């Protein structure tokens, strides 16, 4: 049962007025509510920071879906955070061909600089480090994405300069 006073995130679990409007727009795009689940989960993640059990229950209620269906979908897709992530999410491509172009060396370098392993978040909540499968930039390897922006043809110096900008 959805509990608007759930304590798994700070504050009440209610969409902001802007997101209520966005929800109306999204629902008009599809012939039925369920089809809006992915965009609504993105919206919820952007507002609440992560998809806590309380947030997923709220989404289920708003889209008139069983909570289990929302959990099932949220856990199938890697871009939905089922635990809190850092303010900046670094995703390093280690797929073929990046793996042979130094992708793993980039992961090691960042890991050493930040003192965290893959899948971990710095203690101050600043950065989460992830390995990604092919990011569609294979010609410019090695590369990473941070907060959706591409950084290509990486060198240790460029990585350090980038890390310094992430506050």
């Amino acid at each position, binding site marked *: 049962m959805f509990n608007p006073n759930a304590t798994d995130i700070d504050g009440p679990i209610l969409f902001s007025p802007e997101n209520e409007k966005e929800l109306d727009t999204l629902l008009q795009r599809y012939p039925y509510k369920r*089809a809006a689940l*992915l965009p609504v989960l993105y919206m919820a993640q952007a507002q609440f920071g992560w998809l806590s059990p309380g947030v997923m229950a709220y989404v289920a209620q708003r889209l008139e879906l069983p909570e289990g269906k929302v959990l099932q979908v949220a856990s199938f*897709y*890697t*871009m939905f955070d089922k635990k809190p992530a850092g303010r900046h999410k670094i995703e390093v491509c280690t797929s*073929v061909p990046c793996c042979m172009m130094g992708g793993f060396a980039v992961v090691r370098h960042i890991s050493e600089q930040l003192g965290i392993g893959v899948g971990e978040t710095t203690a101050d909540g600043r950065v989460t480090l992830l390995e990604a499968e092919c990011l569609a930039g*294979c010609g410019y390897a090695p590369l990473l994405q941070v907060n959706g922006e591409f950084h290509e043809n990486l060198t240790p110096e460029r990585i350090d300069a980038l890390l310094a900008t992430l506050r």
Partner: protein
Amino acid sequence: MERVITANWHVEQAYTLSVYQQHGGFKSLKKVFGMERGAVVPELIKSNLRGRGGAGFPVGAKWSFLPKGTDVPKYLVVNADEGEPGTFKDRFIMERDPHRLMEGCIIAGFTLGLKAAYIYVRGELVLATRRMEAAIAELYATGLLGKNILGSGLDFDIYVHRGAGAYICGEETALIESLEGKTGQPRLKPPFPAVVGVFGCPTVVNNVESIACVPLVIERGAEWWSAQGSEKNGGPKIVQVSGKVKRPGTYEVPNGISLRDVVFSDLYGGGPLDGRTIRGVIPGGTSCPVLRADQLDVKHDFDALKEKPFETMAGTSGVIVMDDTVCVVRIAARIARFYHHESCGQCTPCREGMGWVSKILDRIEAGGAKRAEVDQLLDIVNNIRGNTICPFGDAVGMSIGAYLRQFPEEFIAHVEQGRCTYPAW
């Protein structure tokens, strides 16, 4: 060669409607509005334009399968879930020339009497998403989308729908499931999407590059388009070269160009890095069987690469080059790990088999495997192949199987020496 598909890639702000129109944008749509509705599909069939998402299915034929004269809404779904390792072309179409894709969508809408197009874009492609959303907003503001477009009587909408990180959603029926708000698990076919697609309605699913080519076929004519390629492989196309070459990047080439030219020509891949030799080439993304360096004298198109002794695929035209510093066993192991991670879990042979394949390959690469495990590996991949709902299982079987077939000595050497002798990653 003349840039056709990529003509706008280096034009400043070609992603805006005004610049796109200055460069001839939306002329094809206006031409189509003046044509008989039924004239576009025969033109596409004649052009030999084939699907650029991997399978190479003729676009005109696919459009012709959509039932006519039904009352249920029909849809176009654009597969923009670019995620096949080695592939990076659709992203640039969406980022730099999104209106060409939109123009193709609207032409499809008019020709096939569609209600709307959904562009299913990979969640990671944030700039591409932003550029497409901006393009769509411009089109609504100028009457090129919405009700009665340019007085043609066509009501048509385009929506962008973001995926959320699942490779399998590039498979068309998994993509449709995902668009309906479900986990991306492929459907059994038949029924094919043309009959029962998204929201239970007839649906045509096309790749980004395929749809972006449609206005160009209309503009240049089917005969011109067909003449640009090899037999039954019409048009220029975008190859992407990555890995151990001097000039990685995207290049527009005639269909049927020699694979050797793609890898070695100074216009394209530029050949191996100084002092190195090429060992293997994947011709179209990691699902395609690998070729040895002595097998590059083949036309890069959907038909020639299928023939013996190549037995591979043109796929997405993502050409991945490995040189003599690259351990092919480790590449196979990396691909297996990818497939294990991306298996949707629906079919047992794929879900379980890929875990075994991945573990055995890791063990062989590390030097801790027995000789019998190399044979066992082939047995497992052959039992995945053909025993799953979607082509993912076949791709696994073919691509992993090809490393064993093409480079058996490398696998044996790892077992016999008990270690990998190549530089670490």
